[in-house]
């Protein structure tokens, strides 16, 4: 859909084609860690002129092979400024996040961001106009042979949006491999109460991919069924109930270019005819030392969003979820239950008995990750969950 880069999107497929023609030949590659990995300020966020929160995340780059990516930038002073000398502080709310509940800005002015970090450097972005984001028309699903395509459609009758970016949060209800009916109270096995159920959980994730589109080549400012994400038919996400919250941002052509390059650099490389990676600078610069790089593009726009739900009853029955762990169920006679309780605390007792209902000879058990959904989710239903 990023039409400007059409000649490059051809070909992630080609890699595979070429690859599969001849062999499976894509393998993991870990080059030696780079010495003197740079420590660059990363600024992410949107100046929201409405009553909604404006949130900026400030962090630093880390070594490529570092275990964690999180290196928050603490103690910085962040201000939004307009082109009429208005200053709107955005205070730190902790852990590198800077936020203000509702700036309520004059949308006819242009805005920029000024950051002063604790190392004494000052960063200023270019002035950007405020874009008003049109509402999302629809978020829908298309059933493909072995996957589910989630798409978004939008339009702007005034024709002034043209460049779109989306982010989305997915939430889904899933279950563990086997239900657990009993729990040890320290002395003996007792039936789980409703609060202690660990079979059904909710999990969620933020959109990892950058989704962009432009209608600047179309006669009308229309985005029709732009792909958001592709979910495999065997994914746990759609084994019962699935919900996605899509946020839409109107951006400028320049911002789209920046995001597109970032997208290209992270998920469109490596094919035979792929574009070579390259860094492009965003619209924020270090004023203390022009040679200091900084990552990020500052936009000012409102945000529109839409949440939709999908149940597995509308999906093909042949789609069966693949459980992420390899699980088996063991039988444990009564004589060993006490012992196992102590020795194998991770065991979860799943099925009640084998033998007689009233006089069980023992229990069946499985590993914790096979019975406990809470290691990957929460049993607390999100407040927005209305589906049923």
């Amino acid at each position: 859909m990023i039409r400007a880069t059409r000649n490059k999107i051809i070909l992630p497929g080609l890699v595979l084609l070429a690859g599969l023609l001849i062999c499976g030949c894509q393998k993991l590659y870990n080059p030696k860690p780079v010495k003197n990995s740079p420590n660059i300020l990363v600024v992410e966020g949107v100046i929201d002129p409405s009553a909604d929160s404006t949130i900026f995340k400030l962090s630093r780059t880390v070594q490529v092979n570092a275990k964690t990516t999180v290196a928050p930038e603490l103690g910085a002073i962040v201000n939004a400024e307009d082109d009429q000398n208005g200053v709107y502080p955005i205070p730190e709310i902790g852990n590198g996040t800077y936020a203000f509940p509702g700036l309520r800005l004059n949308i006819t002015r242009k805005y920029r961001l000024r950051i002063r970090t604790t190392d004494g450097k000052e960063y200023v972005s270019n002035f950007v106009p405020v874009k008003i984001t049109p509402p999302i028309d629809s978020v829908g699903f298309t059933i493909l042979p072995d996957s589910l395509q989630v798409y978004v459609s939008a339009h702007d009758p005034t024709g002034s949006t043209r460049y779109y970016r989306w982010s989305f949060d997915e939430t889904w209800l899933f279950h563990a491999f086997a239900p657990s009916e009993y729990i040890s109270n320290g002395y003996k096995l007792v039936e789980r109460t409703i609060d202690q159920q660990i079979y059904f959980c909710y999990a969620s994730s933020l959109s990892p991919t950058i989704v962009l589109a432009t209608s600047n080549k179309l006669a009308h400012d229309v985005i029709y069924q732009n792909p958001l994400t592709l979910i495999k038919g065997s994914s746990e996400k759609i084994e019962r109930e699935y919900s996605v919250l899509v946020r839409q941002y109107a951006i400028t052509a320049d911002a789209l270019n920046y995001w597109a390059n970032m997208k290209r650099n992270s998920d469109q490389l490596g094919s035979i005819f792929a574009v070579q990676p390259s860094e492009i600078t965003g619209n924020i610069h270090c004023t203390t030392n022009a040679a200091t790089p900084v990552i990020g593009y500052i936009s000012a726009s409102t945000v529109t969003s839409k949440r939709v739900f999908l149940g597995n009853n509308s999906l093909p029955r042949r789609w069966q979820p693949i459980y992420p762990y390899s699980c088996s169920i063991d039988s444990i006679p009564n004589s060993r239950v006490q012992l196992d309780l102590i020795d194998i605390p991770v065991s979860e007792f799943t099925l009640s008995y084998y033998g007689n209902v009233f006089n069980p000879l023992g229990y069946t058990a499985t590993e914790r990750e096979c019975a406990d959904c809470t290691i990957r989710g929460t049993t607390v239903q999100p407040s927005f969950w209305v589906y049923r």
Partner: protein
Amino acid sequence: MKKIYFFGLCFVMLCRLAAAQDVNKKTISVNFQQATIEQVVTDLEAKTGYHFYYTQAQFDSLKVTLQLNDKPLEVILNAAFQKTDYHYAIIDQNVFLSKARQVSTSLAPGFFNAQPANAPPANAAVTDYTVETQAKVAEATTENKIYEIGIRTNSIKAGNATLAGYVRNIKTGEAIIGASIYNPDDKLGVSTDQFGYYSLTLPRGRHTLIVKGLGMKDTRRKIILYSDGKLNIEMQEQVTSLKEVTISAEKVANVKSVEMGVNKLDIKSIKQIPTAFGEADVLRVVLTLPGVQSVGEATTGFNVRGGAADQNLVLFNDATIYNPSHFFGFFSAFDPDLVKDIELYKSTIPEKYGGRLSSVLDVTDRDGNKKKFTGSAGIGLLTSRLNIEGPIVKDKTSFIFGGRTTYSDWLLSLLPEAYKHSSASFYDLNLGITHQINDKNTLYLMGYMSQDHFRLNSDTAYAYSNKNANIKWKHNFNNKLYSVLLFGIDHYDYSITSTANPVDGYQLKFGVNQYNGRLDFNYYTNPKNTVDFGISSSFYILNPGNEQPDGAKSLVVPDVVEQQRALENAIYLGDKYDITPKLSLSAGIRYSLYAFLGPQTIDHYAPNLPREPVNVTDSTTYGTNKVINTYGGPELRLSARYNINDDMSLKAAYNSMRQFIHLISNTTAISPTDTYQLSDPNIKPQYGQQVSLGLYRNAMANTIETSVEVYYKTIDNYLDYRSGATLLLQPHMEQQTLNTRGKAYGVEFLIRKTAGKLNGWLSYTYSRTYLQQDDPYAGELINNGGWYPANYDKPNDFNFNGNYRFSHRFSVSLDVTYSTGRPITLPIAKYEYGGSERVYYSDRNAYRIPDYFRTDLSMNIEGNHKVHQLTHNSWSIGVYNLTGRANAYSTFFQEQGGVINGYQLSIFAKPIPFINYNIRF
């Protein structure tokens, strides 16, 4: 042959009588009415007492009607044979009558390498049966016969004469290109040109010429050169399995020619080099030559001495091929059954060629068989080929036709579901017609067409096509001067179609047309001097992009990037001059004049500011074919050779080149959808210069050739893309590109064994190529304006190509390649943005992928060599990438589920067996 001995014997005897020979004073009278030769001879013998010698069969058609009184015998014979093909010679009391050829009454001068005999002239000039006025030039097919060239005189004049003619295959009548005609006594030699034509100036007198041709049996011709004349030489094919690596037929050419950095390969050596799918591949072989590199395996773009892939002029029978690859670059566009040979010019680029900076790759097809219909077919894993050739008019007009297609879809159907609905196919068609109008005029016609289609995931369909046609007229003015007039059209287009999203359905087309006219002259002024000169003109019409809606629901607004037009003219003059036998010089100058033409709208940018939309101050619209601006300048092509001794020489060369058409690409490999751009007021033409120096030495009776060449090269105004550039459908290319300059240097070592059971070559190259953004108006500079290695900068490059012939029917080839990994841009830091880990990249090309190593093995098995059988079969079986090393084509970092992982992509990570069956009929 016996005849020669007979005549020779006669001459020896007659020489002694020469002194006694006198003009007969006795007069007689005759009266013949329709008399036969017998009647005439009987009558004359009776009247003169002379004895006549003749062959009756030769004279049976002669009827003499003549009445003369009191005339000497000579007058009577002159009158009797006037306007006939009969001749006579009188020695003492003997009269020799002959048809077509006059019996010479003296021994050929110089026959014993003695001084010219002082014999008094017996007769006027003997009829010259090789002179041009005669319909047919002698076909010199015999080695031991002595061919007399020119107007015969009894005493050979001092000085030189020029011998010219064609060298042809005796079986097919096809011209032999690059055959050498060499006179070992005077150490003078030439090689035949692209038409098989040669012109050699030698001292008058007796010579033995050594003739060698690619895949031909060496032969020799004995001549006595009286004056300028013609000699066509026919050569026989070598009938063996002959998988001999012959880079150049002229074994001494390595040392003796003035050219530097020229590699020539015939199809036989091309065919013995193993390829991934078993089909001989012209471009793949070019990559094994020293100084030639590529960014990776599945690319047909190649880089010569640090030049970009678009800086190679790929000529196919004098037609410019814009995209010489098929099927994602796994096959080259040239049908191996038709190709005769290829020539790659890396350093000394003939002044005849221009328009590209780095090299000229000249691919030549065979002429069709002039004598009989033949053909061949080949079956491989993915492709099949068929070719037919034969005479249209025997010995005058011939054709050759070849076609190739693929049936790769069966392979694609084996792919997983996601790729099952993909398809890919290609075909190409070649047609060549040669027509010899007469001895002085020959016409050559060629047509070529290739078409590729592919579609992945039934979504977007891609297609591209080359179409070329040209006609050449070769005219010989005389032995020393000939001209070639060429008219041709070269066409390349591609299209992208997608209808997956009905609102977004589109078709995008790109196309370029090049109309060529060229007139080349070749003038052999004297043995030391050859001049060539000519003019050429190319008219370009380039349609950079045309996007149209596809499908009824499509909302796509048609988007057409303005057509670009330009005219590129050139005039050139070159001279090859032997200053002394040891020192030769070749100097050429080419003046190119380029005009960018309307209709076009040109943006003007504020001075000293980056070429960005905000800095456009004004724009001017020009009318159709109005000259918008011109570029031009001289290009120099100089080279010199000094022979240190017979086996060793030193050469030096300087070259400058200009290029007006640019391929704009931001992908590593040339992709089928890269776009071209003509130079305009905002985009300057590229300019390149190269100096090179080489030492050449032959050893072991010229069977081992060695050479060392060093070069240094600079490139100006190379167009590199800006970071994050949009190149497709781009009306303002100057806003997306940056002027870059380049420098490249290197040293190339080559050892080649050209004869014997074991033959092949070994090459090692150390070379570096750097680029630098020096565009003052660029705004953002890549790597802060510092030098950075080009994508194809691979310092160490080693190649071994060997072939061992166990028998005439069985040979084994081994190919070993090693090179430093190419530069890449690696992530040096990571961060979180937009919900996922992202990576921050290093300076462009700051790191390298792992080194490249590959070994290929192939066996060539020929059927029996009986000459008379319906078909001749051969098999080639082999393994590509024998060691199965997973060479990295590229490495990349990709986000998956919010986490960045590094991957290495290999194209051929396992040994690939192949088999090919070829049949000739």
